[in-house]
């Protein structure tokens, strides 16, 4: 892990301590699950200062306080609880589910739900409530459908139902090992079914969960204020304490301008900020506590359109990769704030990540030229652009600043220049978020390369990226259009394999194949960075999920 701050120890007190022991006992009986053993707070007995409101400066403001965009996950993490949690090392830990069992055919999951948990609107959080949530995610009701869970589970999910007040059963059509990983992502936080009946408009504005904070008010364009849930009793096992949060609330400000955002931390107008500007990276590390999480799932990568020339030829795809010194581009553009990621298949924080692929296709212009010659792109026109059969080697890169930080554009400009040396004519097609979402510059004939990422804890993302088109319905999440049935076979086998070692092996087999075929080329990672003022302690990023900032354990220094 790259987090510069040491992982603080955790702390259990009173009733939660009891809970933890009970949990440990329950867990021991589970089969097929690695054991969860919480460590105990080293400074037990030292009172933590309570009170205060955290002023947190965030980057983008979503249109709804929950949903499929990662910006929405961050918010949801504060006010809702998930069925299960995922620890830093990828192990699944109890949260709303105190324990669970998986049937032998791996198709039936039975969860024991934590008792006495209530949503903040007073609705009981029981098995039925969770079942309603899960069934809603996969329904076609636009108010309930979950844009993250659906693509993962639509092929395997059958039904969720409460078989007892505190016992939930999820039935699958086919085994799907990453199910619990999916449940552990913040976008799958459980919301009050009573509240959900109010309709999307109200829920977006004031969603109701059971989490440590309650959405108090959303002043659009300015901030979301959260207040402490005084009755909070359902913290995940991976948290540092149990019971209500220490601080009185969070003022979650939206400060899209990075100068303002970073400036506000400098002047002490905020206690923590999200996304440290690259240009301030060094300064931030010297002044503030810096937290960082490199998200799992795919890295930020270049997807090469492999279904038509020139990138239908694997030699050309590889040549493009060799011709660009992406490491130099990333290092300069992000000024060291983001690492280069050569592995286009999987991000380095995923458990299945293969380090040896991290430097794949290192800059080698000779090799690039060689491959292109080999692929028949031998002629060059006046401008030095390679030509084959009268066609120029033109490469259009579509991208949007919804998926790329400001500095990323600079890196693309470097790539543009470097690839020119090998005879690529690279053209940038920046697209504003709306157009990008509307599919502009993303049609089959609109691009050769597109820049995208998809956050997830790990390799389960392969399903989304590489599921081949079925029944004429294209996989809209596979922009490289690379379809390989052998690869899909391996991925499916991995998903159904419950032995971690074997599954990891299978996923890594797929990972090698992807890198080798080069339908996607690594570029950099998506990271979550947080700078916190020295007086704010114990803020952490949920490394087990996608690095959501967690303020539940946070508290102010005595000095404040």
């Amino acid at each position: 892990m790259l987090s510069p701050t040491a992982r603080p120890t955790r702390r259990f007190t009173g009733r939660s301590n009891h809970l933890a022991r009970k949990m440990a006992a329950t867990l021991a009986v589970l089969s097929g699950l690695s054991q969860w053993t919480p460590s105990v707070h080293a400074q037990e007995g030292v009172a933590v200062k309570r009170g205060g409101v955290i002023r947190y400066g965030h980057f983008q403001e979503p249109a709804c306080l929950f949903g499929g965009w990662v910006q929405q996950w961050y918010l949801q993490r504060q006010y809702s609880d998930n069925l299960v949690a995922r620890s830093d090392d990828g192990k699944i830990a109890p949260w709303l589910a105190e324990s669970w069992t998986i049937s032998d055919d791996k198709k039936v999951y039975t969860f024991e739900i934590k008792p006495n948990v209530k949503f903040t609107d007073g609705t009981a959080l029981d098995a039925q409530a969770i079942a309603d949530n899960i069934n809603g995610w996969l329904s076609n009701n636009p108010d309930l459908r979950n844009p993250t869970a659906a693509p993962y589970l639509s092929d395997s999910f059958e039904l969720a139902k409460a078989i007892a007040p505190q016992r939930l059963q999820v039935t699958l059509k086919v085994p799907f090992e990453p199910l619990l990983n999916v449940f552990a992502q913040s976008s799958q936080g459980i919301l009050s079914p009573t509240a959900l009946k109010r309709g999307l408009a109200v829920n977006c504005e004031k969603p109701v969960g059971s989490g440590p904070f309650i959405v108090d008010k959303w002043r659009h364009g300015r901030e979301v204020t959260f207040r402490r849930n005084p009755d909070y009793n359902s913290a995940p096992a991976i948290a540092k304490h149990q019971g209500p949060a220490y601080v009185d609330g969070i003022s979650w400000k939206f400060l899209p301008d990075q100068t303002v955002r970073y400036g506000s931390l400098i002047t002490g107008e905020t206690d923590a900020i999200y996304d440290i500007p690259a240009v301030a990276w060094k300064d931030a590390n010297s002044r503030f506590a810096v937290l960082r999480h490199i998200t799992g799932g795919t890295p930020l990568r270049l997807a090469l359109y492999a279904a038509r020339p020139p990138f239908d030829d694997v030699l050309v795809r590889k040549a493009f990769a060799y011709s660009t010194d992406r490491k130099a581009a990333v290092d300069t553009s992000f000024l060291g704030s983001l690492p280069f990621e050569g592995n286009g298949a999987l991000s380095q924080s995923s458990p299945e990540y293969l380090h040896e692929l991290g430097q794949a296709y290192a800059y080698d212009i000779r090799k690039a030229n060689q491959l292109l010659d080999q692929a028949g792109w031998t002629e060059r026109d006046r401008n030095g652009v390679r030509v084959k059969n009268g066609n120029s080697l033109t490469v259009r890169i579509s991208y949007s600043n919804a998926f790329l930080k400001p500095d990323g554009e600079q890196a693309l400009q470097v790539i543009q220049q470097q690839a020119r040396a090998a005879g690529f004519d690279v053209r940038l097609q920046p697209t504003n978020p709306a157009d990008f979402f509307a599919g502009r510059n993303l049609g089959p004939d609109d691009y050769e390369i597109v820049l995208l990422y998809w956050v997830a804890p790990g390799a389960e993302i392969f399903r989304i990226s590489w599921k081949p088109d079925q029944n004429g319905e294209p996989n809209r999440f596979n922009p490289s259009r690379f379809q390989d049935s052998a690869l899909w076979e391996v991925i499916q086998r991995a998903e159904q394999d419950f032995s971690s070692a074997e599954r990891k092996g299978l996923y890594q087999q797929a990972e090698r194949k992807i890198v080798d075929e080069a339908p996607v080329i690594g570029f950099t990672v998506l990271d979550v960075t947080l700078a916190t003022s020295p007086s704010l302690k114990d803020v952490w990023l949920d490394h087990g999920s996608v690095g959501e900032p967690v303020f539940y354990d946070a508290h102010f220094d005595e000095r404040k």
Partner: protein
Amino acid sequence: MSRSVEVTVSRPLGELLEFICYVPFRVAASLATIGFFVLAAIAPKVLQTHDPLAIDLSSSLQSPSIVHWLGTDQLGRDLYSRVLEGAGQSLAIGLGATALSMSVALILGVAAALSGGLLDSILTRIFDVLFAIPTLLLALVFVTVFGPSVLTEVIAVGIGTAPGYARMIRGQMLSIKGTGYVEAAKALGHPFPRIVWRHILPNAMSPLTAMVTIGVGQAIIWASGLAFLGLGVAPPAPEWGALLNAGRNYVIYAWWLEIIPGLAVTIFALSLTIVGGHLQDRLEGKI
């Protein structure tokens, strides 16, 4: 119709000479500045010291120095050369937008002023409505509908500023329509189209030259405002608004990346305003 007696042919030339010889210092300096940027727009290579697109990762984010007069950006590109390179696109946008808004304004304004009656009131209402919508908002509407591009930017700024011009042209035309010399021409029995062509239009147009001059500067400011919001031209084109937008992220640590493009916009618009104001003063006979 009648053949006019042109006694002094070389008058316009003489006036131009006179204009150049007897301008105040600030106007001369402004003309020089405009000339510099126009030259940069036409032949950027002449004035540039570096390739504006050449990335030199070893000299990234250097402050202004003898080698890089105005410093470098994150990719080590020479800012001075980039600003000059951007002049072309910025000027084109400014000119294009002004030309568009002037054409629209001319057609509508002249139509309104000359037709009078119902058509005039309808057109005037239309100006009112468009005038009632803030320029930038109108521009945002266009960007929303057509998506950001150079053309959208030109159209957005052009349409956004047109109602103001149209109103002015209409007012100008109406006031000239009521002057003594138009009446005198009418009393001489000249047909109305001829009066429009020979008296009303030329006299209404001459203040527009000043207006256009100032308008180009304003159009560049509006356009870079759009770019500043990230709704402008695609990189790596160093259009001034794009430079401003990019520089904003570095302003705490590399001030020149924000200050210099902003200064370029300001100085260019200022020069145009000074020259335009001077032209207007001359036309109004104040000098």
